[in-house]
């Protein structure tokens, strides 16, 4: 394998590793919340620096490849896409830390009600991260378009979650501090889904050379 192909493969592997770490952080932060496991929440917060370090490492590698290999065409789009999506992944990691912090606070209080919407949102957001990274590796397919569509489901769940909590708050203002923290968590998950959408949009750029960010997607064929 030519050196450059080898280096690009190494770069892809690192992005996948970062994606895997972020996905785990999201899953564990929500698990720490739902199962009231504060040790797990602390673990998510402790592990965040590994995500940050890998993000920085990938950026440095991209800059090195641009300087030394002068990538063009598909290679260039792969590297620029990598630089953008690792930023999104790193931000998702921060959101998982925020969820873990809220979990630590909520775990100190009596449980308001069982979690219904939030696990669903977490599952959808995680699958969006997973599928967008699958698309990053497998290249052009329908997957990134499906990820973008799934963002609407998460948005709907966010609204539903808020409305349910709002009616509880109206009935019993004493629960407002707890309910607000729950709406924060839903907001974090909604942001995670937005970042996954950004990634999917960049994958489409990587495949087709066409920027679809900030446009209405009319075409969903790979």
């Amino acid at each position, binding site marked *: 394998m030519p050196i*450059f192909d080898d280096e690009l493969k190494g770069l892809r592997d690192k992005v996948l590793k970062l994606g895997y770490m972020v996905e785990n952080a999201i899953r564990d932060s929500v698990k720490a919340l739902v199962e009231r496991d504060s040790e797990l929440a602390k673990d998510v917060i402790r592990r965040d620096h590994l995500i940050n370090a890998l993000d920085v490492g990938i950026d440095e590698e991209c800059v090195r490849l641009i300087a030394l290999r002068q990538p*063009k065409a598909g290679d260039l789009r792969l590297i620029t896409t990598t630089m953008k999506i690792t930023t999104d992944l790193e931000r998702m990691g921060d959101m998982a830390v925020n969820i873990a912090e809220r979990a630590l606070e909520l775990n100190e209080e009596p449980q308001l009600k069982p979690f219904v919407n939030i696990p669903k949102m977490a599952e959808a957001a995680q699958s969006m991260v997973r599928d967008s990274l699958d698309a990053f590796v497998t290249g052009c397919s329908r997957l990134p378009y499906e990820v973008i569509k799934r963002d609407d489901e998460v948005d709907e769940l966010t609204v539903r979650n808020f409305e349910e909590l709002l009616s509880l708050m109206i009935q019993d203002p004493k629960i407002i501090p707890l309910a607000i923290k729950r709406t924060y968590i839903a907001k974090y998950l909604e942001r995670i889904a937005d970042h996954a959408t950004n990634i999917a949009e960049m994958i489409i750029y990587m495949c087709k050379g066409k920027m679809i960010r900030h446009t209405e997607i009319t075409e969903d064929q790979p």
Partner: protein
Amino acid sequence: MVDDGNIFEIKDFSIYYGDFMAVKNVRLDVRSGRITAIIGPSGCGKSTLLRSLNRMNDLIISSRVEGQVLFQGVDIYHRDTDVIELRRRVGMVFQKPNPFPSSVYENVAYGPKIRGVKKKSQLDEIVENALVRADLWKEVKDKLNESGLSLSGGQMQRLCIARSLAQEPEVLLFDEPTSALDPISTANIENLLQELQKTVTIIIVTHNMQQAARISNYTAFMYLGEMIEFGDTDTIFVNPYNKLTEEYITGRFG
């Protein structure tokens, strides 16, 4: 130069060396006042195509052409074409700097003299003007009578450009003009091409893809005598249409 459409229109144009078809049915429009780069692996026909634009190929006995090359709308392969005049209007600069073995001044004054300019003051003006445009005047104004061959490689190449400019060409053809030069001389020539583009249409054949990317407005990719892809340089280097182009510019060819 104001962009006023296509200065060259190459139509179903083929070039043969004996039985060998070096350029195959090429279609290409060259925009006036722009830099067009032709890239492709060795033997793809890019230099042959370039040389055909001012009929330098005529000098190769076995060569013949089919199709048309329109320069300002006129077929340059028509039998009434004044080839000497064509080569004045479409100048050429080669890979290796090739000044005449005479003084800096004589190198630049040669063309105008042949053309019939006799007055010393007029020749002086043409020489100075051409050397200024070639960004060489400051370096040679005190040694105009020294041999052109005493200059550095980069200076010699700019002398050759000045020699072409003294003929007031509308187009300059460059065949690998920096491949024998160091990076600083290369940068000087590239800056010069950007500057010249304002007054002369430039077509450049280069093996250096970064050079094509840096200086050209349009890029043509040739392979095995065929024009595989032609387009905006931005598009060719970011999102080429053809798989062969992609393989070539990303270095995964063959």
